[in-house]
């Protein structure tokens, strides 16, 4: 069978074998957890509880009022200890609700499922997804309700279910595909109904043959197409995936809506199914705990808000001399500095390493490897120089805002230049300048 792919990109060592065959384990909720009120792309949610309140599992504790926002739910039952600024995995400290677990796990009584989820109207589906606070679980955490509302002038014809998991080490999505293929396909059907699309394509990389076979079998009665994709990074990046499967190119600065496509991660799709069929809000997710610094690498179902320390303890603890802890995948993850930091909705993995951390940056030798590997067709070395010398206008002309920060350029750079950091710096400078000019 012919595998589909996109131009450029890299193929880093996969190193998935540590957790490839390990079934998802359910981690018991910790005694105390901290749920940040910003776990998504957009503006933070408004707190709905105060110190001393009793909460149930699945009770809404933060209301996302803005368009690009998502509601936050309690992941245990118990008492609110405080609403305070707390360390956030993305670096800055953000308002968070700390809850003491009473160990009872009382589910909120008012949570209700639907008997026939397929008879819901698109608006009802969107409403349920919004109520459940679902965001993209692939890592970017874009509010899903927004993704399910295509603008009227841009009809959607295809729903793509993203089962690539192209980041090395991570296997959470793969395990989910093996263990809950039916839920994922039903969720995909719900997404199709909500967006009014005609077809569903599930994209799976060819290093996950087992998941591909299972899906091919299950999809027979669901009329969904299952496509095999080449194992390559960043195959799971939205724009590259659309190109690989449909040969459609998302225009500069545009969204998948512009080419009539909606892309959902497999984890998100399962969360949508759970929300629509059982009324269950997003308060837990599957993550991969791996890396050479973890005693027992595992795939774990954790409650949102669990501190890293508890998750690591559940996986046998850290080995000695671990000096690097990363939330997310090794390519796009964020380095962490504290074990008190909580798991958020966008956490796809928790990786710990013993790694040499000193490095020396050489000058650019203009070898062009970054250009060869950039999946977006940019010139990272040139962008880096524009940002370095503060020529932001030229950087914008050369398409710096199209960069998806996948890290392929930096991975392939023989001079070890921090290309992604420079490009991120440039992007943020341009965005903050725009904001200033608007004000």
């Amino acid at each position, binding site marked *: 069978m012919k595998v589909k792919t996109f131009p450029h990109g890299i193929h880093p060592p996969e190193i998935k074998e540590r957790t490839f065959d390990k079934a998802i384990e359910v981690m018991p909720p910790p005694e105390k957890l901290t749920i940040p009120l910003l776990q998504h792309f957009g503006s933070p949610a408004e707190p709905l509880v105060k110190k001393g309140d009793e909460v149930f599992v699945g009770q809404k504790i933060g209301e996302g009022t803005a368009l690009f926002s998502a509601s936050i739910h309690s992941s245990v039952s118990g008492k609110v200890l405080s609403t305070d600024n707390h360390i*956030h995995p993305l*670096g800055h400290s953000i308002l968070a609700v700390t809850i003491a677990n009473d160990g009872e796990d009382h589910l909120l009584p008012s949570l209700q499922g639907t008997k026939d989820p397929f008879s819901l109207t698109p608006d009802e589906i969107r409403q349920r997804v919004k109520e459940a606070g679902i965001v993209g679980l692939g890592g970017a955490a874009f509010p899903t309700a927004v993704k399910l509302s295509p603008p009227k002038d841009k009809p959607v014809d295809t729903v793509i279910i993203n089962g690539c998991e192209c980041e090395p080490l991570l296997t959470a999505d793969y395990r989910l595909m093996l263990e809950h293929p039916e839920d994922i396909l039903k969720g995909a059907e719900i997404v199709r109904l909500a967006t009014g699309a005609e077809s569903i394509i599930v994209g799976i990389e060819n290093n996950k043959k087992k998941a591909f076979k299972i899906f091919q079998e299950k999809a027979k009665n669901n009329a969904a197409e299952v496509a095999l994709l080449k194992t390559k990074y960043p195959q799971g990046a939205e724009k590259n995936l659309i190109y690989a499967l449909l040969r459609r190119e998302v225009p500069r600065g545009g969204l998948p809506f512009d080419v009539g496509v909606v892309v959902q991660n497999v984890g998100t799709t399962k969360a949508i199914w759970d929300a629509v069929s059982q009324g269950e809000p997003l308060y837990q997710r599957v993550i991969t705990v791996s890396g050479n610094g973890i005693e027992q690498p595992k795939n774990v179902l954790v409650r949102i808000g669990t501190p890293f320390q508890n998750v690591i303890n559940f996986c046998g603890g850290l080995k000695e001399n671990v000096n690097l802890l990363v939330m997310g995948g090794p390519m796009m993850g964020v380095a962490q500095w504290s074990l008190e930091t909580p798991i958020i909705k966008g956490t796809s993995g928790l990786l710990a390493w013993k790694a040499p951390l000193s*490095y020396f940056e050489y000058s650019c030798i203009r070898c062009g490897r970054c250009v060869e590997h950039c999946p977006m067709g940019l010139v990272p070395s040139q962008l880096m120089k524009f940002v370095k010398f503060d020529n932001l206008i030229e950087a914008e002309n050369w398409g710096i805002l199209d960069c998806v920060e996948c890290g392929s350029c930096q991975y392939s750079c023989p001079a070890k230049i921090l290309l992604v*950091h420079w490009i*991120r*710096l440039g992007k*943020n400078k341009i965005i903050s300048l725009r904001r200033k000019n608007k004000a």
Partner: protein
Amino acid sequence: MDILVPILTMAALGLFFSAGLVFAYKKLRVYEDPKIEIVSEMLPQANCGACGYSGCRAFAAAVVKGEAPPENCPVGGEEVANQIADTLGIKAGEIIKKVARVHCRGTWNAAKSRGSYLGISTCFAAHLIGGNKQCSFGCLGLGDCVLACAFDAMYMSEEGLPVITEDKCTACGKCVDACPRSILDLQPISQEIIVFCRSEDRGPIARKVCKNACIACGICVRACPDAIILENYLAKIVDFKKIDPEKIPDIEKCPTDSIGRLKKENER
């Protein structure tokens, strides 16, 4: 007779072009107020943009037109403002001499670090990933402000904080714009008491990450309730003129040294 043809041709051409020049002089002439040139020459020519215009000449034009008051050039200060006012026959407003001030005392020793920061060595880049110190409000210590200063009025101390030489500071505000965490702002030079902290974390959290953080204990507020208030777990000076000079020793009792007088350079 052959000589007449070129002479007449040249004369006709000369007449034609001179007519063109006369037309251009009369009709296409752009009048510029000679005062703009005079005022422009009085300005410091730093072209720093602190006045809000693109350069000294643009500011001069605005002053002559009456769109901007002469005291708006912070670099020139009182002297230049009065000079311009005299020339134009207008009255210069009152000038409050301002300087940039650093609102953080999180030195490398006082503020705990997060780990080894290996990214690009500028404050803006470090701020993107949350910074190199555990405090998410404090100075990042990588010197974006010092690079931005066009008047050589700043340097980084060995403790990792910017120091401002107040005699050289012209209050142009470039360092204020350069700082991603708003550690710097412009204050009247006569203001003696300064809050040296920006942390909006609650006391215990702030204290855990930095020895010199404001913990909102309120000692300074009790000393001068009219002038100082607590806002977001941080002392804030609302009106420095109301601070009673006799109460300054009480304010300086601050347990974390996060409010007080700016030490002179030789006192450091």
